[in-house]
């Protein structure tokens, strides 16, 4: 009789990473190649371990705060390395500026506000827009300035806006300046919203520092569901759609009009599932720690007009632009012409915030014009029609306008965007859609699935989410395992970074 042998050599491989110094170097060191994303399994595993220790400190306010700040700073270090120093400097200066603004009055107060805002914006302007200005200066004036070799610190667009909102809120006396620098550091560094939002307001978040949510079974399930939903949205749907979008946008002229139309749809859903997936994970992680961040999306593609769309898309940014750009400019209090002008300026700022490129400015301008047009239309024809067909027509029109504008957002250049539009306008044939269905059936199904979810009534989604509450707590580990395996089954081997990661 042959002895039974079991090969357990592979078990050595389990511990091989622990013996490899590179593992430790990559675990604690900074590498531009391995920044921490919420979708990185390494990050999720570390977060799980982090939670175990968090349990011991959850009842102790000060220690909990210190622990969270430390982990958040480490998280930022893993994302942006040496720029951690810059971030810390910004936090310290904001804290001091806010205290000074609060003490001053009159012109001095205003002067301090402008100084502090200029200081905060200077980092963003330098790192994000320096090369853009250099290029345009060279083109317009014939100068020969050379490009700066700049790395955009992760999340700078987001935390600069948070810093501005804090300083302006203190100036407007909507909140008092924090007396304790660690409170402000906690608000700014809180890792769930650190790298890509939602843009959290100090007045919403600071009060939560010492009064977090009670973490009970209901909150546990809600937070885990948000994280899993976000992971599936990003890794399963958005990344899959992204594969097709990348191929088409590499050379749109090589593709038929139908393929460009479908790339437009695919990108519209990709950016939505990507960013709303990220926001879901951020909100879920924050919730698991006992902090509730505001929602960032509210079924935006189901909007029946562009104004409603901007109330539901990237809510934290659109409300920030409203409160800190549109209203300070004058809002709708300075005459009709100025209202339209301010709307355009606000959307231009929003477009430019997304990237240092004329394409983003054009994108912002298009949305600004659409908002102005809708506003004018509603004044001329103040119809209150709620009939279903007018809603459906409005939704289809809005979605297609938004999708059309996304072409400029996604294309690599204006030339590429116009090539795609030309294909759509002049070379779209019905038979090509049938061809697409035959040759790329999986992608076609994914676009339909994405559309179904994006337009699915939110009330039904809410009901489904509530049904999950009845699942016993101990079973959730299994749901996590199943969700992760689904992701692995369909995961693109080329994982795309979050689209909003470097905005």
């Amino acid at each position: 009789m042959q002895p039974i042998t079991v090969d357990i050599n592979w078990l050595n491989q389990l511990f091989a990473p622990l013996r490899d110094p590179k593992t430790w170097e990559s675990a604690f060191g900074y590498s531009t190649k391995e920044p921490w994303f919420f979708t990185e399994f390494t990050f999720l595993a570390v977060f799980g371990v982090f939670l175990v220790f968090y349990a011991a400190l959850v009842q102790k306010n000060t220690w909990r705060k210190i622990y969270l700040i430390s982990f958040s700073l480490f998280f930022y270090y893993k994302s942006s390395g040496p720029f951690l120093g810059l971030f810390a400097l910004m936090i310290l200066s904001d804290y001091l500026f806010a205290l000074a603004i609060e003490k001053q009055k009159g012109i001095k107060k205003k002067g301090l506000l402008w100084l502090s805002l200029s200081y905060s914006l200077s980092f963003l302007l330098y790192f994000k827009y320096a090369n853009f200005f250099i290029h345009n200066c060279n083109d317009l004036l014939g100068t020969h300035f050379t490009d700066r070799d700049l790395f955009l610190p992760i999340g700078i667009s987001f935390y600069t806006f948070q810093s501005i909102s804090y300083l302006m809120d203190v100036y407007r006396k909507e909140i008092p300046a924090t007396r304790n620098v660690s409170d402000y550091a906690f608000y700014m560094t809180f890792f769930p919203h650190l790298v890509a939002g939602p843009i959290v307001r100090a007045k919403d978040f600071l009060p939560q520092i010492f009064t977090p949510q009670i973490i009970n079974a209901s909150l546990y399930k809600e937070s885990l569901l948000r994280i899993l939903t976000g992971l599936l949205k990003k890794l399963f749907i958005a990344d899959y759609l992204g594969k097709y979008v990348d191929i088409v946008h590499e050379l749109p002229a090589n593709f038929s009009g139908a393929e460009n139309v479908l790339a437009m749809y695919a990108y519209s859903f990709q950016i939505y599932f990507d960013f709303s997936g990220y926001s879901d994970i951020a909100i879920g992680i924050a919730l698991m720690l006992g902090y509730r961040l505001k929602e960032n999306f509210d079924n935006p593609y189901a909007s029946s007009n562009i104004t409603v769309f901007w109330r539901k898309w990237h809510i934290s940014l659109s409300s920030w632009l409203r409160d800190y750009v549109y209203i300070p400019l004058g809002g709708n209090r300075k005459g009709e012409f100025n209202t339209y002008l301010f709307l355009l300026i606000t959307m231009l700022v929003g477009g430019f915030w997304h990237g240092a490129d004329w394409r983003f400015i054009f994108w912002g301008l298009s949305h600004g014009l659409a908002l102005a047009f809708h506003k004018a239309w509603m004044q001329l024809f103040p119809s209150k029609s709620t009939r279903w067909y007018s809603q459906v027509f409005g939704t289809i029109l809005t979605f297609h306008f938004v999708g059309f504008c996304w072409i400029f957002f996604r294309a690599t250049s204006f030339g590429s965007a116009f090539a795609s539009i030309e294909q759509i306008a002049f070379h779209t044939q019905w038979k090509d859609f049938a061809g697409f269905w035959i040759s790329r059936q999986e992608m076609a199904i994914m676009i339909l699935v994405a559309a179904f979810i994006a337009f699915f009534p939110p009330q039904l989604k809410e009901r489904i989410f509530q049904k999950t509450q009845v699942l016993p707590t101990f079973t959730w580990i299994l749901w996590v395992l199943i969700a992760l395996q689904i992701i692995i089954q369909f995961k693109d081997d080329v994982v795309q970074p979050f689209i909003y990661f470097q905005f």
Partner: protein
Amino acid sequence: MADNEDQITPDSPEATSAKLNSISSSNEHARVSDGEKQPKSSATPHEKSSPWLIIWAGLSISLPLLLLYIYSCSPQTLKLGQLELKQILGNQDIDAMLAALDEPEPVPVKVTHDSTSNLARDSADFTPAFGGTIPILNKNYHQPFVLPPYELPVFADTTKHRILLIGDSESGGLRYPLNDYCLANGHKIILSLEWYSATTFNFGRSDTIQKIIAKYKPTYIFLVFGLNELYARDLKARKIAANQLAKKLRGIPYAWIGPANWEEDNGISKVFQSSADSGAYFLTKKLTLTRAGDGRHPDVQGYRVWMDSIATWIQTSSRYKMLMKPPRKRGRPFRAPVITINAANYRGY
């Protein structure tokens, strides 16, 4: 943007006082601010967060990942009916995996001048580098062959080659400087096959390359691709495809040019290097190239610099050398036929 939501002006005293009242000055963060609608909580007034639940939350995330990691280390793959459960990608030891999948290279023959008809022996510029033995690698792989030492300055083969350029979008840019070199050295590009968005799978799994080779009968192949695979983690599958590709090239001298990385890859360069014949792979990623507007593809100058480096390497230290003197004139018109296909429309397999 909601246009009707600016009813309260920023410095309106009512708004300010309402908000300030909600924040205590001594313990300003102990209460909820500005009357915003707070989310519903099912917690009872005296309920506290449960540490055990938080630990369970941590385990709910870490344990499944640990299980998946253990599964990915095991040599067994589980099946759910017909469906094979995939393992977490990217945790393999790349070098060990490549070594396991490496296939022995064919051993080329030692050929003498007498057996070759296509060698030019009258080159004034270049002298034969190693006596009377020159490796011709396009036939008879059955006898031992000793590779020439790499430090040799210049190889003397002045054969005028029929060059086939195959690649992804990079080949579309590289063909112009390559054309300059070919015209200057008497070579001829017979076809440029530009397969946009193609990956190792397209080149390795399809029979497109064999068909092109059979039709155009090149004497030298330039292969340049990989820019679409920098982030690839399924290196095992790509290694198998790269081996298939290398097999298709057997019998013809070639230069396998690595992708022009704009940042470090996840190991695809290693995969290509291990699949190509030794000395036939050019590691582009060490070069610093200027980039086009997309930040990924090299620009015109970048392609020229890249081609200069490739030419120097081909002439001096590649396994399959050929004459590649720098051209005096650059930017000459490209007249060879070009086939462009897109991986989105045509996968090839």
